[in-house]
């Protein structure tokens, strides 16, 4: 089976009020593929007036949509899931072309997981109920959940369809209308989805605006006509969005990345068995999705007694990673999503080396053969210490930094010596460590004897500067709703105060 670049139209507008419309100013930007820098298509370069048009549509639709039954909304979410599933290969190809990741990942991870998130929230909203408490014999407290209204969502470029599928379903399931802005680097799959589901929701319920952050993202995030903003991205933009939200007294949820530790204790090497093999793979997970994952396990911490032997196996496994054309089903690691990422990663390789980190493998761009025109970085392992900048900053590339630790206390000290707290990995055969180490790590998701699994129904979100809010779980529903409390008296008698 071999794949090639999918076909696109010449240009795409915004999806507003149930149909594709040209940007009001008539401007478009060119989108290219990081695989070879070839032209994909032109997408709308929206301005404030386009955002306002989308907000008009969403605000006009919110009353009726907010009053639909959970049954109806769930059924429409399931319909979207079915449509993505029926067109799985088409979505996977478009995603690979736009983002540069391998077709193996889009076929088996991005798109199937997206399908499942739509279904998960369809089932959540059907299964839940409100609450009522009899506070005393005459007084009932009843809690009814109501939608917030209109949600602004700004999503990143590393998993374009999947990030959309983390954010849209809970907002829609709870009866909100949405204006979503995909990252300008990856507008394709959101557009394809709107083409496929154009008639599923009533007009105005889902609106997609393309364009640049300062021109389209900022007017959306700062508008007084949105009731909440959900954002995945970096810290400075996160701060700005929270500032704008403070002017409107709006709630926000933020997912802002991490510098996740992946900890390997001595016991993993007690046997040379399937579990050790899994641990080696767990360490190499840093290369998954070219390292462009908020939870990239970008710091490997290995206990000193096994350090040399363990790292020898990790380096060997890393060197076996196949980096080739992402359309090739054998490709394990594709292209970085854009030139600026590619340049940024290389500047980190440079400062890492200058700070004294030792390159155990990789350490440079890959310009071999057909990769020459794309943005490819060889999977890289840097050995050093936790105060180096490469250990502290999110490189967002296939670059992992490794260091050793003496005991549990030192492992925890290094693991928690970071500004962030999104993910972490703990690998051990010791039953006590299995529980106690994860509890002591300041991160929202600790994978224990596994890594990079993102199933629906396991809450995901950050501690510290990684943000707040918990996605992928029914608890996300409460981030998109008000609680209406009705306090009802069944007492016929007055209080006697007046």
């Amino acid at each position: 089976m071999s794949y090639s670049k999918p076909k696109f139209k010449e240009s795409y507008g915004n999806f507003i009020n149930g149909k594709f419309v040209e940007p009001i100013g008539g401007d478009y930007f060119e989108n290219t593929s990081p695989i070879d820098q070839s032209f994909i298509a032109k997408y709308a370069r929206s301005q404030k007036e386009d955002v306002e048009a989308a907000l008009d549509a969403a605000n006009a639709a919110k009353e009726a949509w907010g009053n639909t039954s959970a049954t109806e909304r769930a059924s429409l979410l399931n319909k979207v899931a079915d449509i993505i599933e029926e067109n799985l290969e088409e979505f996977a190809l478009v995603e690979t072309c736009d983002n540069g990741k391998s077709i193996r990942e889009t076929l088996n991870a991005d798109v199937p997981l997206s399908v499942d998130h739509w279904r998960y929230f369809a089932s959540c909203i059907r299964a839940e109920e409100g609450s009522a408490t009899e506070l005393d014999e005459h007084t009932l407290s009843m809690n009814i959940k109501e939608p917030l209204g209109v949600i602004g969502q700004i999503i990143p470029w590393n998993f374009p369809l999947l990030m959309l599928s983390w954010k849209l379903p809970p907002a829609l399931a709870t009866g909100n209308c949405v204006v979503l802005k995909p990252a300008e680097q990856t507008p394709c799959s959101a557009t394809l989805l709107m083409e496929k589901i154009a008639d599923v929701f009533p007009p105005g319920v889902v609106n997609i605006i393309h364009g640049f952050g300062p021109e389209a993202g900022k007017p959306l995030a700062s508008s007084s006509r949105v009731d909440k903003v959900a954002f995945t991205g970096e810290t400075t933009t996160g701060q700005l969005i929270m500032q704008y939200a403070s002017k409107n007294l709006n709630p926000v949820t933020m997912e802002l990345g991490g510098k996740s530790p992946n900890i390997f204790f001595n016991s993993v090497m007690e046997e040379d068995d399937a579990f050790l093999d899994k641990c080696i793979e767990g360490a190499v997970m840093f290369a998954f999705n070219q390292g462009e994952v908020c939870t990239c396990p970008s710091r490997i911490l290995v206990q000193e007694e096994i350090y040399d032997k363990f790292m020898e196996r990790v380096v060997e496994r890393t060197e076996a990673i196949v980096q080739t054309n992402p359309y090739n089903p054998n490709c394990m690691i594709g292209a970085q999503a854009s030139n600026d990422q590619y340049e940024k990663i290389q500047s980190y390789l440079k400062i890492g080396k200058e700070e004294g980190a030792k390159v155990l493998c990789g350490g440079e761009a890959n310009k071999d053969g057909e990769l020459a025109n794309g943005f490819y970085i060889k999977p890289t392992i840097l050995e050093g210490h936790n105060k180096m900048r490469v250990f502290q900053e999110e490189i967002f590339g296939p670059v992992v930094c490794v260091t050793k630790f003496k005991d549990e206390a030192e492992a925890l000290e290094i693991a928690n010596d970071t500004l962030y707290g999104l993910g972490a990995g703990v690998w051990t055969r010791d039953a006590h460590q299995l529980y106690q180490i994860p509890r002591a790590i300041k991160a929202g998701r600790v994978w224990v004897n596994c890594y990079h699994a993102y199933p629906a129904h396991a809450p995901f979100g950050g501690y510290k500067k990684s943000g707040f809010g918990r996605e992928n779980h029914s608890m996300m529903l409460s981030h998109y709703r008000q609680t209406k409390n009705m306090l009802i008296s069944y007492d016929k008698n007055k209080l006697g105060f007046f």
Partner: protein
Amino acid sequence: MPKIDITERAKTIVNQLKEKHGDLIFHQSGGCCDGSAPMIFEKDDMYLDESDVLLGHIAKVPFYMNQDQYEYWKHTHLTIDITEGRGASFSLEIPLGVRFIVHSRLLKETD
């Protein structure tokens, strides 16, 4: 010596942005996606306080970084450059099809 510098081609972009937007500030971002990159905003767009460290002025624009992040960066000298690319943040140069980027080196005694 200042701990921060800017290349000529990056300075040209800063001056172009000043003409359009007026007074500007740089703020170094952290975190995922387009993080770990400098962002440029209109002067009053971002709320700054004592938790933001002023590293110096480049092209007459002040460059700030959060104190927490600065603790891990303070032993390095930064040169702000420009490269082709796109970012999903609100940084003002993005519509020009370029992104500011940081080149770092260790501080020397002569700095």
